[in-house]
């Protein structure tokens, strides 16, 4: 599996440079989070982008997987405290949004 920096470096579109660095920051924070769901979401997002970069998943498939994870987040948040919900929105939902709206198409 490709490293996330290697994958993001293949994106040459200057207009999403800021989003790329925000994505890296969110990924770092989410990967070290205490909630398993947050860590798992970060890891799977990287895996899907990597599979897309390797040509094993299409753009449409990756977008669908990211949307599916968002729906899972809704169910997960429904059983969590307000603090945990806020963290998931800030980290996971934002991470998935950047990936689905900007990164996947640019890869």
């Amino acid at each position, binding site marked *: 599996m490709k490293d996330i920096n290697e994958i993001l470096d293949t994106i040459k579109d200057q207009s999403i440079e800021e989003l790329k660095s925000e994505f890296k920051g969110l990924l770092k924070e989410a990967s070290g989070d205490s909630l398993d769901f947050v860590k798992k979401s970060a890891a799977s997002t990287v895996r*899907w982008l990597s599979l897309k970069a390797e040509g094993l998943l299409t753009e449409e498939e990756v977008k669908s997987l990211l949307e599916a994870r968002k*729906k*899972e987040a809704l*169910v997960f948040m*429904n*059983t969590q405290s307000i603090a945990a919900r806020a963290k998931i929105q800030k980290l996971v939902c934002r991470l998935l949004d950047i990936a689905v709206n900007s990164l996947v198409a640019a890869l």
Partner: protein
Amino acid sequence: MRKVVKSFSKILAISFATFLSGCITLSNYSATSYEHLTQLKAYHVKFIDDFTFELSQPIDSLKVQVAASAGDLKFREAEEYADGMKDGSRTFNIKVLHGAFNDDVKWLGKGQNFRKTYAEELKMIRKSSYDQAIKGEKIRAGSAD
């Protein structure tokens, strides 16, 4: 003095009622809801399996329609039951899972199957989504777990 005690009792009653109404937002564990979720999980995962092939290939749209309709009925039954229990959080979960099932039906509606790599990843998410809802059911008061 009697008036003061009466007012105090009134305030206490109102506070207690408010406290109670704040607490009764979650209903107790329901074995039927638990069963609905496990059955829906099994059905949804089999639905994905049934339309998964190594590579892209045309699919039998009638077969999709029949399987989607049977799934839709199962979700509607679970939603009706959840609605009857007057517990918004339980209804919410079923509605989100129903939406996820509809997304997968729509995918097939475009005339494409689930390719193997995609299906493996998709199944992982779907299974985990049901597991979150099942966990939410099992942490309710009255569950044996």
